[in-house]
C-alpha cells in the first residue's frame, strides 16, 4: 500500500488481518473434515444437458468490469459471495443478504440487481459491473464524484450499492421507464423530480439517513436542474 508521501508503507490493513485470520481458521477447519478432498478435487463440469452432482463445483465465467474471471463454484454461491469471497472484490457489500437493503446492488448487463438474490452460476458468460468498475483509472465516475461532493453518505456501508443503483436508475430513466410516482404513464421520459429519485431509489436503504445528500448527488450526476 502507499502512504501520503507516495512511499510504500509496511502498514497492514484491516482487510488483510481479517483475510489472513479467516484463511488460517479455514485451513484448520478443512483438515478436520472428511469431504475436504472432494471439495478441492476435480469435479465434472456443469453443462446444459445434465445436472451437476450435489457437491460438484460448477465452472462459471463472469465478465466482471470487462475482465473474464473463471471460477469453480458450489452452485449455492450467490453472485454477491462470488464477487466478495472468490474474486476478492469486496466493494460490493453484504447487508441483509435477502434483497431488502440494496447494499449488494451491481449492474448485470447494465441493469441494476441485488447480487445477493441470484446465483453466480446463472450468470455464466454475462457482464457484471461493480463499484470497482465505475471509475476510469483514477478519474471517478461522475456519480462517485457527486456522492463525494454532496457528502452522500456517513458510514459508507450502503454507498457502493447506492452508487451502482443510481447509475442503473439513470439508465432506466434515460430509457423512459416510469415509476410508481410517475403521474402520467403516457409521458415518454418522466422528469426526475426529487419524488421520482426517492421512489426509484427506495430499494437502497441508508441506515445513516443520508437521503437528502444522496438525492442531491444523483440530481447533479444526472444533469437534473436543482
Amino acid at each position, binding site marked *: 500500500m502507499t502512504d501520503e508521501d507516495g512511499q510504500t508503507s509496511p502498514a497492514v490493513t484491516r482487510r488483510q488481518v481479517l483475510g489472513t485470520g479467516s484463511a488460517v481458521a479455514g485451513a484448520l477447519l478443512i483438515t478436520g473434515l472428511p469431504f475436504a478432498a472432494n471439495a478441492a478435487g476435480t469435479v465434472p463440469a456443469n453443462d446444459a444437458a445434465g445436472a451437476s452432482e450435489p457437491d460438484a463445483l460448477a465452472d462459471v465465467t463472469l465478465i466482471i468490469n470487462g475482465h473474464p474471471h473463471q471460477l469453480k463454484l458450489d452452485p449455492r454461491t450467490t453472485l454477491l459471495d462470488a464477487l466478495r469471497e472468490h474474486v476478492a472484490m469486496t466493494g460490493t457489500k453484504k447487508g441483509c443478504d435477502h434483497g431488502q437493503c440494496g447494499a449488494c446492488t451491481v449492474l448485470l448487463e447494465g441493469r441494476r440487481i441485488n447480487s445477493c438474490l441470484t446465483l453466480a452460476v446463472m450468470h455464466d458468460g454475462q457482464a457484471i459491473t461493480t463499484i470497482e468498475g465505475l471509475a476510469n483509472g483514477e478519474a471517478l465516475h461522475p456519480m462517485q464524484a457527486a456522492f463525494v461532493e454532496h457528502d452522500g453518505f456517513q458510514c459508507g456501508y450502503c454507498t457502493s450499492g447506492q452508487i451502482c443503483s443510481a447509475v442503473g*436508475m439513470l439508465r432506466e430513466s434515460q430509457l423512459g421507464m416510469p415509476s410508481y410516482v410517475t403521474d402520467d404513464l403516457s409521458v415518454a421520459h418522466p422528469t426526475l423530480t426529487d419524488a421520482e429519485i426517492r421512489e426509484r431509489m427506495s430499494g437502497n436503504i441508508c441506515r445513516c439517513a443520508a437521503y437528502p445528500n444522496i438525492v442531491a448527488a444523483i440530481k447533479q450526476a444526472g444533469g437534473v436542474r436543482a
Partner: protein
Amino acid sequence: MKAFTYQRASSLVQAAATSAQPNTRIIAGGTNLLDLMKLEVETPAHLVDINRLDLDRIEDTADGGLRIGAMVRNSDLAADTRVRERYPVLSRALLAGASAQLRNKATTGGNLLQRTRCSYFYDVSKPCNKRVPGSGCAALAGFNRMLSVLGGSDQCIATNPSDMAVAMRALDADVETIDGSGKSRVIPIANFHRLPGTTPQRDTNLKAGELITAVTLPPSPPGRQIYRKIRDRASYAFALVSVAAVVDVVGGRIRSARIACGGLAPKPWRVGQAEATLNGSPANAHSFDAAATALLDGARGYGSNDFKIPLARRSLSAVLSDIARV
C-alpha cells in the same frame, strides 16, 4: 442453504419434464425462491434454470390483446408502451411492487408463483400448515396484521403478496402452461390461485411438471383504470389493501365495473356480485358502499388484521369516487 444440483434448461418441454421430478424447482428470477432457500423454507434438491429460454417477448394478439412471455421481467412489462397505454392498471400494479432492483429480475411467471410473506411461513421454528402440512397455524392467534380477512380457513390465513396478479385478475388474464409431454393448457387467472381449505401447501392449481409459458390479456376493457395500494411505508412494502379497478362511467352512471383486491385474501379477490351491484347504478356513495358490502361479504378479522375490513371499504369507495369524478 441445502445443496442442490443445477442445470440450465435446454427447452421448454425438457424443463417441464425435469420439474416433474421429486424435489425439483424451476428457477427464473430467483428473487423469492433463493430468499426462501437461504432460510431453508424451500429445500429443493434440483434446480432447473429457465433464464435462457426464449420466453421474454411481449406480443400483440390477433384479437387486440397482449401475450406476455413468462420470463418478461416485471420492470420491462411495466415500461412497455402498449401496457402503459392499454393496461395502465397493470403498469401501476407492477410499479407498486418491490424495488427497482427486484423488478429487474422478477419475472411474470415467477410473480404469479411467489409465496406468501406470512412471517410464520418464513419462520421455520414455528408451526405452519403451508410449509409443513398438519403442523398447525401460528398466525390464527398470532401476529396477523398482514394476513387474510377473506378466503382463509382454520388451517391458513396467508395472503397472496402479488400486486401484478391483482391487476391481471381485474383484466381477466389467462395463464398459459406447457407440460413435459409438450401439451399446452390455458388457466383463467380466476382459477389459477387456490384458497387454502384443507390443503394450504398448494398455492396454485398448476400440476407437477407444469410450466408457465405466458400470460395473455384480452383486449383492454372500456373505462378508466386505477391501482391503489395502501401499505405501511410510502414505497417498497407489501399491501395491507390494494384495489385494481377498471370502471366505465358515462353520464354519472356506471356502465361496467371490474374490481379486484389484494392484501385481503389468499388470492386476488374479485366478487361478481359487487360488480353486478355497480353495473347500471349511479356513480355515487350509496352504490360504492353497496359494492363494498358485497365485496367484503363473509369477511372476518383475526385480531391484529381487523382494521383491514373498514380499510378495504374506504379504499374501494375512494377509488370509485376518483374514477367517477373525472
